[in-house]
């Protein structure tokens, strides 16, 4: 594992993604592709589904190209946005379920109180900081998180695989997330 130096690499990824969104900059997109494509392929091959990891990676990267104009850097780092696209395609391919998501343009949507959100967002846009926080987790908590994020395992599947009570899995996830939030910020309470 190589942590990015103080989020610098990710900062440039964010700038590249913005360039793709602004002007369909093919050179910027190629640099993004060289960095993310192998990672997305590794991510897709861990889900255990039958769909081809290569095919899902290509679909993700084509979606990144098409949707780049929708990327809002104030909401998170490039890797966060690209992760969410990959995750949704994986759910669709492996579980054949919809992923319900809120719509910020919906009349019933309750918007952010803007200033608080700006302050909170700043810290975890720094991908290097998030990576360092992850490295500081105790092994048992990190395992539960990785099984959720990489292997698409439900809490009960993780409990069965690790031979733990369901309550222990939930509490490890909560402890891990508490610690990450304390290190990364993003929660005023």
């Amino acid at each position, binding site marked *: 594992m190589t942590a990015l130096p103080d989020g610098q690499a990710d900062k440039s990824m964010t700038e590249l993604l913005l360039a793709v969104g602004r002007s369909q900059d093919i050179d910027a997109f190629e640099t993004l592709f060289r960095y993310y494509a192998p990672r997305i*392929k590794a991510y897709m091959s861990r889900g255990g589904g039958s769909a081809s990891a*290569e095919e899902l990676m290509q679909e993700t990267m084509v979606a990144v190209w098409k949707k780049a104009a929708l990327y809002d850097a104030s909401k998170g780092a490039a890797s966060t946005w690209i992760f969410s696209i990959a995750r949704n395609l994986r759910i669709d391919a492996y579980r054949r379920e919809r992923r*319900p998501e809120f719509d910020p343009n919906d009349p019933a949507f309750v918007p952010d109180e803007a200033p608080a959100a700006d302050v909170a967002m700043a810290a975890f846009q720094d991908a290097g900081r998030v990576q360092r926080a992850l490295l500081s987790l105790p092994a048992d908590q990190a395992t539960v998180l990785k099984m959720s994020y990489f292997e698409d395992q439900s809490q009960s599947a993780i409990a069965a695989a690790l031979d733990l009570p369901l309550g222990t899995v939930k509490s490890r996830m909560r402890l891990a997330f508490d610690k990450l939030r304390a290190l990364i910020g993003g929660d005023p309470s």
Partner: protein
Amino acid sequence: MSVIHHLNDDLLVSYAAGALSEGWSIAVATHLALCPDCRRRAAVADAVGGAMLDDLDAAPSEEKSWQAVRARLTSGSESGKSRSTGRPQTLPQPLRDYVGGDLDGVRWQALGKGASQLRIKTADRATQVRLLRIPAGKPVPEHTHGGRELTLVLTGSFRDGDTIFARGDIEDADASLTHQPIATPEADCICLAVTDAPLRFSSWIVRVVQPILGI
């Protein structure tokens, strides 16, 4: 009025990880539409996913992958306009899509004692998702759970013991809890209920009619 009862972190993390099944995810996403606080926490959970993606060991990309993707890139891009109706809505997205419209179009199915429900279809067989309408001042039949139950208030409010739940609030109950939610007297209470096993009602009479009523 802001939300007081929030999502537990294990739900937020599982949702961000993509590991939460569709039924639970409807309750999480609908709560997020109503709760800026939980959206901030959800953004942290998404950032964890991004950092994990960065951390994956990656072999260099193959040239033929790049050529294949390059050939699929077209010049059109998606714009951010969603088809917002502009009209005030009670049910937030994504719930409104699952219900097929807002509350005024719901065809309720009677549950007895004035309560009614609408079953919501999903591809997720491990959960049961429905809207419940409880008449003002009336209880939901007392029940225990085979597992977890998430109840998200959409209109009105209910009291469970000493606690009041109003629009946007979520109650997260597990198998050990026998509870008796009662709609507050001012108005009918409509909520989204997601369970991971059919509810077991405490009274034998309700247990006998449960399969007939489909609750």
